[in-house]
């Protein structure tokens, strides 16, 4: 039998693959690199992120993320609704930690309207934001572990998260999309019983989280899948707009809770965990440490929380209480005016950014003095974090892409807006 060479066989295979009516010419497709489409429906892309990967064998040479599969037009909708109406929409930005987004938005609008919520409301906001951070990091760690093959931690993480969601249920009336803040305060007070329950949750949480950590930190597969994978140095991390736990894993001590303190974070005693390796493992360690720090902040908040009102008394800007609306004329008129015409903040522009679980979440609001914003821009952390994926995956194996995407923890709700 005649010995066939590569040059004889390859054209035939390529011809069979392409069919007859395709106008592509490839010199030798079987020796070439290939393009792989990952997502938008892929269990490891955390939603609807689409990555186009150019591969040489298993090694990634280039990557192009494609967004927009969850573009819901928040910024356009914000221009067409009043400031209060937009609060439920902020829940669905970073949908793992809704109360943190509520707080960020309320602070931006309050800055624009020139009002400040009462101290008790601000403490409650801090409490909720930190509980939300714990939720987010539990899911992030669990999903990362699941992506690299450790399912148990994910289920244990969700178990702890459910306990926090039960508190949201009691405090806000909804377990998931809370819509809890109002302009000038929060919707309802937190009872002392709930606070006691939260403390007892924190007590058992630290023990439970130690258990989870032991499962991961002693797991050789987990460590070796993450160590030295997806390394980004300090300069590149800043340049690419990394924020949140991701930038702190690259050795930059940048946390807006310390850099530009808001609420009462400057009175809280907490550390900012910083790791210098910049790899996936460091990003996991930062999240694990932050969970403990958040638990610490929750304790301090409950310890220090003052008594008093949870809504500001400022009739033109803040919604009156429902019980008063039904019994008093003046409150009824104010309620009518605010609901129908909005709070009419002064003409101006404001940008306010806070440290969300994923990174810096900023709201840029342009007001023309009307009840609805003229323009609203949401600076979402996941959007900037995803931008770094091509840099991180270059030269890594295809299975590492899953670990890298899991470790930077993108949420497409806010990345696509």
């Amino acid at each position: 039998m005649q010995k066939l060479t590569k040059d004889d066989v390859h054209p035939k295979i390529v011809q069979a693959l392409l069919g007859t009516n395709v106008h592509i010419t490839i010199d030798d497709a079987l020796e070439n690199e290939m393009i792989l489409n990952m997502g938008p429906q892929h269990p490891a892309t955390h939603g609807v992120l689409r990555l186009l990967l150019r591969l040489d064998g298993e090694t990634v040479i280039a990557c192009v993320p494609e967004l927009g599969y969850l573009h819901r037009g928040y910024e356009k909708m914000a221009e067409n609704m009043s400031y209060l109406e937009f609060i439920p929409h902020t829940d669905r930005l970073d949908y793992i930690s809704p109360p943190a987004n509520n707080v960020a938005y309320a602070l931006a609008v309050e800055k624009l309207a020139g009002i400040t919520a009462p101290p008790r409301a601000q403490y409650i906001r801090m409490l909720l934001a930190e509980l939300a951070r714990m939720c987010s990091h539990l899911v992030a760690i669990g999903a990362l572990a699941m992506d690299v093959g450790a399912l148990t931690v994910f289920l244990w993480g969700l178990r702890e998260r459910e306990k926090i969601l039960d508190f949201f249920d009691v405090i806000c009336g909804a377990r998931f999309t809370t819509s809890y803040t109002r302009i000038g305060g929060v919707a309802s007070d937190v009872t002392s019983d709930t606070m006691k329950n939260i403390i007892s949750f924190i007590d058992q949480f630290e023990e439970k989280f130690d258990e989870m950590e032991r499962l991961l930190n002693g797991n050789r597969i987990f460590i070796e899948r993450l160590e030295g994978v997806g390394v980004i140095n300090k300069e590149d991390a800043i340049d690419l707009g990394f924020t949140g736990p991701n930038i702190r894993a690259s050795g930059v001590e940048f946390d807006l809770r310390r850099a530009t303190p808001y609420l009462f974070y400057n009175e809280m005693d907490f550390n900012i965990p910083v790791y210098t390796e910049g790899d996936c493992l460091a990003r996991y360690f930062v999240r694990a440490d932050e969970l403990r720090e958040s638990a610490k902040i929750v304790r301090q908040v409950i310890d220090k929380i003052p008594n008093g009102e949870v809504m500001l008394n400022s009739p033109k800007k803040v919604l009156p209480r429902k019980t008063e609306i039904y019994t008093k004329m003046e409150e009824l008129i104010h309620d009518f005016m605010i609901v129908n015409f909005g709070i009419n903040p002064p003409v101006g522009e404001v940008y306010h950014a806070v440290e969300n679980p994923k990174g810096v979440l900023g709201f840029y609001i342009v007001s023309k003095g009307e009840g609805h914003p003229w323009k609203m821009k949401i600076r979402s952390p996941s959007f900037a974090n995803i931008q770094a994926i091509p840099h991180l995956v270059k030269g890594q194996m295809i299975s590492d892409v899953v670990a890298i995407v899991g470790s930077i923890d993108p949420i497409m709700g806010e990345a696509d807006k």
Partner: protein
Amino acid sequence: MGLESKLINDGFFTTTVDAMAAWARESSVWPMPMGISCCAIEMMASGDPKYDISRFGSEVMRFTPRQCDLMIVAGTVTYKMAHVVKKIFDQMPEPKWVIAMGACTSTGGMYRSYNVVQGIDQFLPVDIYAAGCPPRPENLLNALMQIQDKIGKTRVKDFPDPPHTSIDEKQGELSLSKN
């Protein structure tokens, strides 16, 4: 409970093939988790130890459409995503069912905007609409039970085999020539 209690007396029972097949179908609905946004998190929560979707035989979430018979569309479907959802739905083998989870998928919900499909029933045959934004896990389980009821009422002849087409006919000229 269930089968065992019937078998304890005589060791056999009579039924119809229809009832048997429907019972088998409804007790092992394998979902295709089409997780798009917020609802996907609640769908995950319904699989966690507290809500435990495996009580209903549906914990087998498969991310490949070929192994599924129920598509849970969880989250806002944008125009760009609609083509992807449709493509995945077309790849699922018959018989198949669809749950539209949440307000966004059912009607567009709170997203009255230029890029959100106002109800996925414009391009998918939806069986159950689960209310809520997002629905609580209990509500998703309720939707699943309703799908099970619906499947329980089906009969074998409702799902005839699709006309047989061989791979060679479909791909004809694409197959490797032998010379």
